[in-house]
């Protein structure tokens, strides 16, 4: 079964664009399956350095799976992922990942500052000290998401949106070059969303690359410069103006999308 899928994946995909070498993040021929049905099928994706890319698609489209497989958290049937021209596993220091609405134990004995310090693990290693320099970096990351007041709180004593910001801070502390964010705006209020997007735009301004799974079609144009539309297969990819159209959205979401949700309508407002 697995072999069949692998074969299909190999045959089915077109020759990959050759720019994986220079891209900040590139996925080639990625096929992932949890059972007999692939969740992600032969997906190619190329993210240029310094861009902000939205990964869009309906629930169950395989967006999270694609990110997880690219990071090696899920073993793909076929395909590979590179960052800055090297296998992802070789450049972990340069990649920060924020999982989808982390399903952690909120009663865990850990404060905001401790969670953010986990983003510094690659630098601390097993026995390195969490010294003044690293502490300052963690504090700075917390301040950037507006959580300075809460640094010493146990994480269970935060609201959902505040918890989301803590996980973003953990990624910021890492000071990576590529940020893979799985629905950073899920369950946050409008003010927090503004704060988060400001942080992401600042990353982009500093030449960092951001890839975010995003669900709110009405803000795609405002927040991102590139999109990847996904529904098991890749539907479209490119600059927002070209790839994010009524046609591609219909292809990704099927008939389930009201006309008012389509980009044409958004632009008309």
């Amino acid at each position, binding site marked *: 079964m697995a072999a069949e899928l692998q074969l299909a994946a190999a045959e089915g995909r077109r020759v990959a664009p050759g720019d994986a070498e220079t891209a900040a993040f590139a996925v080639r021929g990625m096929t992932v399956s949890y059972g007999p049905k692939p969740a992600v099928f032969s997906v190619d994706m190329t993210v240029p350095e310094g861009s902000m890319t939205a990964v869009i698609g309906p629930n169950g489209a395989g967006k999270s799976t694609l990110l997880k497989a690219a990071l090696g*958290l899920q073993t793909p049937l076929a395909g590979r992922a590179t960052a800055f021209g090297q296998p992802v596993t070789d450049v*972990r220091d340069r990649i920060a990942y924020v999982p989808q609405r982390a399903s952690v134990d909120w009663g865990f004995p850990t404060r905001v500052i401790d969670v953010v310090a986990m983003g510094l*693990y690659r630098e601390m290693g097993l026995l390195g000290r969490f010294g003044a320099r690293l502490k300052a970096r963690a504090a700075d990351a917390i301040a950037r998401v507006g959580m300075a007041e809460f640094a010493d709180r146990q994480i269970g004593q935060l609201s959902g949106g505040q918890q989301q910001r803590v996980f973003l801070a953990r990624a910021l502390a890492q000071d990576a070059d590529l940020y893979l964010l799985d629905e950073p705006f899920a369950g946050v209020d409008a003010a927090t969303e503004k704060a988060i997007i400001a942080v992401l735009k600042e990353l982009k301004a500093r030449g960092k690359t951001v890839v975010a799974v995003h669900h709110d079609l009405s803000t795609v144009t405002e927040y991102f410069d590139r999109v990847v539309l996904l529904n098991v297969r890749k539907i479209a990819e490119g600059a927002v103006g070209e790839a994010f159209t009524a046609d591609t959205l219909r292809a990704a979401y099927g008939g389930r999308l009201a006309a008012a949700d389509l980009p044409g309508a958004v632009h008309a407002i």
Partner: protein
Amino acid sequence: MLFEALTLGLGYNASLVTLGAAALGMAAGVTGTFLYLRKRALVSDAISHATLPGIAAAFMLAVALGGDGRGLPVLLLGSAVSAALGLLAVQWLASRTRLTEDAAIGAVLSVFFGFGVVLLTVIQTLSTGRQAGLEDFLLGATAGMLRSEALLIAVGGLVTLAIVVVLRRPMLMTAFDPSHASAMGVNLTRTDIAMMGLVMAVTVVGLKIVGLILIVALLIIPPVAARFWSDRADRVVLLAGVVGGVAGWVGAAFSATAADLPTGPMIVLAAFALFCLSFLLAPGRGLMAAALRAASFRTRVHLRQGLLAIANDQPIYETLTLRLLARRGLALPDGVPTEAGRAAAARARLDEERWAIVRADPSLELAAARYDGLTPLEDVLTVDQISEIDARRPAPEALA
């Protein structure tokens, strides 16, 4: 006698046993914290029960080979092998069959333990002359323990501690958020194997002192007790080590005072006593602190409500509110406010109005987050900020 035991005054061997028990308790508490945070406590119960057939088989094998069969290293080796088999069996059942982990644990625990009991019975009927005292491994016994054995246990405990120090970060990250840990390059499988390996080491090392039935308690009670004292994982780990160490020390000393007191239950009871103390007395999360906090909170709520009612000329019906106001001289027992009561009421209302402005201003989000209807704004903002807010209040005459 107890005093001598606690202060290592019962001679060299007894002292060594007490120290060994303390080292073991520390290792168990520290290791157990990671187990507890990773939510694998029950797996360790399966592991410990799975040691029994290994002990018995190692004894039989040693006797068959013409040895004594009672040498601790041989028995511990046997227990480690069958504990590992038990762990593998749990993992295999949980991942390859439709059994859930708790069912797998139940199955492995009972089958291995049952098999071990059968082997023990066989040993008893076969070699009546050389009763090996293998039953001591069930509940732990330190009477007649050899010096070398105590030393082995103490060293085993300390080595385990050292390994924990090295692996604490990956183990904590794995326990807290496995996907993130993995994305940071932590190898989840290896970390989990290392953690279970440490648990197995503590179990095996602790067999002689605590016994296989109760070792899980020594792994779990210390972190649960420590959790009451801190919200920081590193401190919980340290405190659990302290709780385990003290429990080992006190328990071993107690059991040394009477010939037939099994060591394991004494140590576990000592740990449980420390748990009760933590549960009752810990500041913050302890029962008493929580009760005190709740009472003081209720008082503040009632006072505030009463004052706001006075400010708005509303009647007060709650008897508790009336009593609290009267006790503080803010109102007469029938609810008529005193002079001081009116002044306090005006202040309360002013505070509410200021808070309303703060909460509507997005630039004051951080301060607004501290609104609970009770904290005076003076505690949150500076005098300058407050006068700036007062300037925004619509009707200054309300100040009067």
